[in-house]
């Protein structure tokens, strides 16, 4: 079936290094969301896109974090100069244009900053 593909599954970075995560949403889904799960059960919304446009970036840290969704490319989330506190699982989700359908989540990228 259709799925949201996130790569890589695991990423290890030394403190201060850059980390780049990728997400291929389901074809035809207009919206893409990024979430950060630090502790086992706490999800933090980071940013969402409507096609290639930023839709809501209220959860995005002002420094070091950036994201893009370009046409014909996977979406990306980039963290410059990673810190230990950035260690988390990052989930991407996509949804259809209307709001009465469930969102489809990827299986996440586990980022470990050492």
């Amino acid at each position, binding site marked *: 079936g259709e799925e*949201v593909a996130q790569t890589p599954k695991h990423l290890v970075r030394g403190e201060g290094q850059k980390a780049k995560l990728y997400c291929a949403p389901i074809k035809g889904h207009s919206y893409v969301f990024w979430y950060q799960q630090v502790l086992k059960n706490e999800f933090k*919304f980071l940013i969402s896109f*409507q096609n290639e446009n930023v839709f*809501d970036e209220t959860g995005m840290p002002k420094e070091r974090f950036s994201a893009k969704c370009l046409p014909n490319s996977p979406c990306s989330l980039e963290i410059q100069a990673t810190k230990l506190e950035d260690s988390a699982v990052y989930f991407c989700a996509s949804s259809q*244009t209307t*709001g*009465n359908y469930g*969102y489809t989540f990827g299986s996440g990228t586990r980022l470990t900053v050492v």
Partner: protein
Amino acid sequence: SQQGEEDPQALSIQEGENATMNCSYKTSINNLQWYRQNSGRGLVHLILIRSNEREKHSGRLRVTLDTSKKSSSLLITASRAADTASYFCAPGGLTGGGNKLTFGTGTQLKVEL
């Protein structure tokens, strides 16, 4: 955005029993969704109930919604060990598909053999 709060935080039952978990929220909603997260995996959408619906079924799942009380419940009947997971509710706002979901801390369900 709305955030749902799940209750209880943890629930342990025997296989074959029913599991009920609750969700409360604070503002008006367009719909409410329930998701499951198995350990180490992403969230899986279980069911969506619209604000004009009171009850919805999907297989062994039954969801109710009471907008006057701003609450929802998820019932899993005849539970199985494979149902062991964390369950999250996500109230959906009045905007369209771009409405971000805000999750609570979930209910951790453990189904024992």
